[in-house]
């Protein structure tokens, strides 16, 4: 098994703006779709209830059907730790999320499946959302190494926590094999834990 999965740096694509703060994972993928043994088909059900309540939901809008960059506001992905949420977004076609802020668990789950999330200042997200709403066919160019997004000649800076950025650039975002390296060190910790060794 290879140590490194593929690396993430340049991500290019048109965007889809999803306005609103505190969009929680129950909305991203309602609980009834968690009754599943695989993650297959989740892309079909992303925002299913929100889309039923709101016919003009961006995820139902034909203008954004090819979009791959999701634009969001504050505290996106709050609530339940369901990995099914970033899975549903990725399987719908999203390859990167830009927003004012993300839930910590959501951002970690997204990283674990190779879906980069980066934060952008409020005014910049507003600029991007409005521009995309006007001209949805124009692509964004994200650079994780340069921590920037280029759009229609304008460059906006973005932020990613250091370790997450490094994991994406170096290709270590799928940590399963990395955690098994030097497994003797894991055993060593177990052996010194009082509650494992009957105090």
């Amino acid at each position, binding site marked *: 098994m290879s140590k490194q999965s593929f690396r993430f740096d340049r991500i290019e694509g048109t965007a889809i703006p999803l306005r609103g703060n505190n969009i929680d994972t129950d909305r991203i993928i309602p609980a009834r779709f968690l009754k599943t043994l695989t993650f297959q088909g989740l892309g079909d059900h992303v925002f299913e209830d929100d889309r039923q309540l709101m016919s003009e939901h961006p995820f139902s809008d034909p203008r954004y059907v090819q979009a791959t960059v999701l634009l969001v506001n504050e505290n996106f992905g709050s609530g339940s730790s369901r990995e099914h949420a970033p899975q549903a977004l990725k399987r719908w076609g999203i390859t990167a999320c830009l927003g004012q802020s993300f839930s910590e668990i959501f951002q*970690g789950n997204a990283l674990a499946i190779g879906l980069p999330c980066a934060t952008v200042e409020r005014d910049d997200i507003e600029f991007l959302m409005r521009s995309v709403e006007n001209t949805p066919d124009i692509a964004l160019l994200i650079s994780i190494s340069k921590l920037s997004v280029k759009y229609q000649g304008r460059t906006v800076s973005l932020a990613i926590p250091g370790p997450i950025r490094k994991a994406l650039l170096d290709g270590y975002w799928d940590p399963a094999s990395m955690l098994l390296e030097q497994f003797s060190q894991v055993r060593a910790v177990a052996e010194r834990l009082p509650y494992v060794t009957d105090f």
Partner: protein
Amino acid sequence: MGKTLLQKVWDLHTVRQLPTGQTQLFIGLHLIHEVTTPQAFDMLRSRGANVAFPELTYATVDHIVPTLNQRRPFVDELAEQMMAALERNCRDFGIRFSDLTTDRQGIVHVIGPELGLTQPGMTIACGDSHTSTHGAFGAIAFGIGTSQVRDVLMSQSLAIDPLKVRQILITGKLPLGVYAKDVILEIIARLGVKGGVGYAYEYGGEAVEQMSMDQRMTMCNMSIEGGARVGYVNPDETTFRYIKGRPFAPSGSALVRAKQWWTSIASDADALYDDVVKFDGSAIEPRVTWGINPGQSIGITEPVPCPEEFDEAERASVREALEFMGFTGGVPIAGTKIDVAFLGSCTNSRLSDLREAAAILDGQKVASNVTALVVPGSKSVRLAAEQEGLDRLFQDAGFEWRGAGCSMCLAMNPDQLVGRQVCASSSNRNFKGRQGSPTGRTLLMSPAMVVAAAVSGEVIDVRKML
């Protein structure tokens, strides 16, 4: 300079620094359930991997389990498949499973502590965000996603970044009719739903020291609703008394040594916190949520807020919430009619919650327009409650008495709202669609407040019934 409990436990469980700069953190107890494991075990099978430490892993079934008809095969085919998958995985990988044939089945965050699995000084992970509950014991406990469940199964560790610590002090004494649920709702209202992102919350102060373990669990449970993945209380005599005698707890001379160690991992008096916030416990009143996230709550005597009271950046969210809930700013929340009353969930379904709720009944009956159900958090809680006659008290009042499970908290089992129903609920989330109907509406409150609402047919100040 002293250390916080978080720092001590973190250092003790650090395996190494990873090439990414993250910490490889050993997980002392891995609790698993049927929803977030099928794909994780499949990933193990496809890699030909084993579970590294089955003896540090424990399973239960809770989210999909029906609370009324628990006969196998379950009527819901998908639920039956998930149950069968967990059975197969536990059998094949040698993991202990508190299934429905045992007296130990229940909501994962109820049975862990009940069985004495949850102990101070541990790191605890589970594929469920309310894993923060176990922090009540002075453990560092947090929710993880399915891929991380795979990582813990394979390596008993995960890649994670350290957290800052915010000390939250609740001074004074909680008034009559005010419970731990109201305290945590107050904290989230003030600090916000994303206030805790990047932080562990350490709860302390006089009011917390007076709390029972069940109450501390209620508070720690909802830390994640405030953005804090981890929430904990320093272990003390209350903690030790709770743990003693439980099936997986240390005993005899081991217990003596354990208590010494548990005492030593509490935060030092001179520990440095990244932030300290104080709340006056004596000023807290019973709270109710009015909106679509757990931060949108008010005291029972307060009116529903108006959008204009908020910063401009928040007004759109507030309007959206008011419109969805059908509330008007300025109108008291007391008097809101309810259709369903739900007493259950990992937040508030333990024996003391049922006793507190039953004490409000005083011979009153569930209002004619209300469907009410009590769902004990575990088989063990249910049996103990039945020993005390609580089941008869609730049933005589018109509540349904159910089997243990997550039930109406989250719509993965038959217990769901219908249409625009309003539910007075002792659970932890009031998100749109959470309780099974896309237009259903959830009002979060304490168990006592749920019962008060059930018998009145509307939201009411429970202190009037005391």
